[in-house]
C-alpha cells in the first residue's frame, strides 16, 4: 500500500469535496501541444490518478478479484438464453436460435398475470417492509432498558431461522380447515371457518403479513444499527433547544437513516422482477386455485419448464428479469442522483 503517494501532493482538505478532483492538478498544457503530447499528458494523468487512488484501490482488490472469479467468469453462460442447448454440444457448440427461448414466456397466456403479481406483490412487500422495519427500529431506539431491546431483537430473528418449508407447515397448521388454529378461533367468535386455501383474494394480505413477520427483524437491525451510529451530540443539542422526542425522531433520526432507506429501496427495486421462490412455492402450497394472486415469474418458470427441462429457456427468463431490473434501477438511481447524489448507488 503506497500511502505516501496519496499524501505527498498535500491535497487541500475541504469540507466540501467535489466528486471529480481533476481540477486540483494543474495539467501543463503548452501552446504548441500536439496530439502525442496530449496523449502522453492524458496517460500520465491517468497514472497520477491511479497513484493517488492506489491505496484505496488495493484495499478493494480482494473483493474485485473474488467478484471477477465467482461472478464475471461464469457470465459466459448468458449465451445459452440464445441457444438450443444440447449436452453433447455444450455451451459453445450448441446452435444459435435467436430469441426462440424467450417465446414461451412472452407468448404465455399468463405473461401479464405473473408479471403483475410479481411486481405488485414485491412493491407491496418492499414498501410495507420499509415502513414496518423503520418503525420497529425507531421504537426499539426509544427503549432504554437494554434487556428488553435484546429480548425483542432476539425474538424478531426467530422467524428468520425457519425455512419456507417449515413456515409453510406452520401456516397450514394455522389456516387449515379442520384443525387450524385460526378457524377454531373464528368459529368461537361466530365468523365460521374460512376455506383460506380456496380464496385467492386473501392471499396478497396473507403473503404480505408473512413477509413482514419474517423480514422485519432482519431489516430493523440495519436501521437500528444506523440509529446507533448517530452521534449522540445531535440529540443532546436538540434536547437543550427543547425539542420533543417526536421532533427528534422526525428531524434527526429519520433524516440520518434516510441514506440507508434509499439504498435498500434502490436495491430492492432492482430485484422487483425476482420473487422469493421458496415463499411463493411453499406458502400457497402450489394450489392452482390460488394462482390468480400468487403465481409469480419464478414459480411459473419453474413449473412450466419441469417437463421440457430446458436451461436455455430458464436462462432466457432470468435474462429478462435482469434486464428489466437493470432498467428500473438505472432509472431510480438517476432520479435519486438528481435529488441527492450522496444517496445514489453508483
Amino acid at each position, binding site marked *: *500500500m503506497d500511502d505516501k503517494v496519496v499524501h505527498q501532493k498535500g491535497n487541500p482538505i475541504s469540507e466540501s469535496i467535489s466528486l471529480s478532483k481533476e481540477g486540483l492538478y494543474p495539467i501543463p498544457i503548452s501552446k504548441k501541444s500536439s496530439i502525442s503530447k496530449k496523449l502522453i499528458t492524458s496517460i500520465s494523468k491517468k497514472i497520477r490518478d491511479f497513484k493517488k487512488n492506489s491505496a484505496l484501490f488495493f484495499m*478493494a482488490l480482494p473483493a474485485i478479484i473474488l467478484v471477477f472469479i465467482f461472478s464475471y467468469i461464469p457470465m459466459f453462460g448468458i449465451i445459452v438464453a440464445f441457444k438450443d442447448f444440447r449436452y453433447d454440444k455444450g455451451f459453445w457448440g450448441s446452435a444459435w436460435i435467436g430469441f426462440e427461448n424467450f417465446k414461451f414466456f412472452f407468448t404465455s397466456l399468463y405473461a401479464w398475470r405473473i408479471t403483475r403479481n410479481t411486481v405488485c406483490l414485491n412493491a407491496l412487500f418492499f414498501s410495507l417492509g420499509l415502513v414496518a422495519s423503520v418503525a420497529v427500529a425507531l421504537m426499539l431506539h426509544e427503549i432504554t432498558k437494554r434487556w428488553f431491546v435484546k429480548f425483542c431483537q432476539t425474538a424478531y430473528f426467530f422467524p428468520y431461522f425457519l425455512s419456507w418449508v417449515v413456515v409453510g407447515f406452520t401456516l397450514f397448521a394455522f389456516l387449515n380447515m379442520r384443525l387450524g388454529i385460526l378457524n377454531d378461533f373464528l368459529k368461537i367468535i361466530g365468523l365460521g371457518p374460512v376455506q383460506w386455501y380456496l380464496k385467492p383474494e386473501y392471499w396478497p394480505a396473507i403473503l404480505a403479513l408473512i413477509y413482514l413477520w419474517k423480514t422485519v427483524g432482519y431489516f430493523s437491525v440495519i436501521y437500528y444499527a444506523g440509529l446507533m451510529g448517530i452521534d449522540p451530540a445531535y440529540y443532546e443539542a436538540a434536547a437543550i433547544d427543547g425539542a420533543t422526542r417526536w421532533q427528534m425522531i422526525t428531524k434527526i433520526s429519520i433524516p440520518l437513516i434516510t441514506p440507508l432507506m434509499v439504498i435498500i429501496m434502490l436495491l430492492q427495486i432492482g430485484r422487483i422482477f425476482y420473487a422469493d421462490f421458496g415463499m411463493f412455492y411453499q406458502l400457497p402450497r402450489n394450489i392452482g386455485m390460488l394462482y390468480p394472486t400468487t403465481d409469480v415469474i419464478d414459480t411459473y418458470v419453474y413449473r412450466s419448464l419441469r417437463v421440457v427441462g430446458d436451461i436455455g429457456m430458464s436462462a432466457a427468463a432470468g435474462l429478462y428479469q435482469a434486464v428489466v431490473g437493470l432498467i428500473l434501477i438505472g432509472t431510480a438511481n438517476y432520479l435519486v442522483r438528481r435529488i441527492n447524489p450522496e444517496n445514489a448507488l453508483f
Partner: protein
Amino acid sequence: MIEAKKSRLISLIIISIILTLFALTCIIPIIAVLSISLSDEMDILRHGYKLIPKKISLTAYEYIFKVPKQILQGYFISLSVTGVGTALSLFVIAMVAYPLSRRDFKYRNPLAFYIFFTMLFNGGLVPWYILIVRYLHLKDTWWVLVLPYLVAPWFILLLKTFFQQIPIGIIESAKLDGASELRTFFTIVVPLSKPAMAAIGLFILLRYWNDWWLPLLYIESESLVPLQYMLHRMMANIQFLTQQLRTTQMTIDISKLPNESARMAMCILAAGPMLFIFPFFQKYFVKGLTVGAIKG
C-alpha cells in the same frame, strides 16, 4: 414539564406493548415447532398440531441422535465454516465498502457498478458449477463452503452506506496527521462503525449458517456435510417422496421416513445455536461512541 413526562411514559408503554406483541408472534411458532418435536407422532396425526404437547416424547431426538457422530460432525463443519467464513468475508467486504464510501475515490462509481451488476446478472448455475468443479477444483473440499460467499454485493452496498455516515472531516484530519489509508480505516472508521459492522457481521454469519445450497451442489463426503444441509436433505426427501409416491409404480417405502416430530427436532437442532448468538452481536450496538471521543 410533568405533562411531557407523562405523555412520554404513555408512549413508552404503548411502544412496549407493540414490541412485545410482535415478539410473541415471532416466538409462538418456534414454540410450536419445539412442541411438535417433543410430541408423540400418533397424537399429531390424530389431533393436529398443539402448542403444548399432550405427552412429551423424546423419540424424535433419539431418532436423530441414533448416530451422534454425524450430528456432531455436522455441528463442527457448520461452526468452522461459519466462523472462518464470517471473519474473512467481513474483512473483505469492509475493505471494499470503505473505498466505495469515499467521495474522493476516483473509481468509486465504476466500482460500485461493477459490484452491483452481479446482483442482477449471473451466468446461471451450470457455468458457475463448471468453474468451481472443473477449473478451481473445489468440489468436495471444505473451502468450497466458504469461498463463493465471501463477497456479497448487497452487504457491500449496505456497509458502504453506513461508512458514508462518518463525517469526512475525521478521515481528512487523520490523514493530515500522516496516517495511511489502511491505518485510518482500522483505527478510526472501524471503531466508529461498530454497530454497522456488527449488523453486517451478523447477516454474513446467518448466511453461512443457514446455507444448504453450496453443500448440496459441491459436497460428497459425509464428513463435510453441515447441519443445515442435513435438515434440507431430510425435508427434500420427504417432499420428493410424497410427491412422487403415487405417480410411479415403484414402491418407495416411506414408512421409514422421519416423521413430523423428527423434522421439527432437526429444525430446532439446526437453528438452536443461532438463537443464542444474537446477544453476542448486540454487545456492539452501543451508543456513545461519539466523534468527539475519537478526536480526543
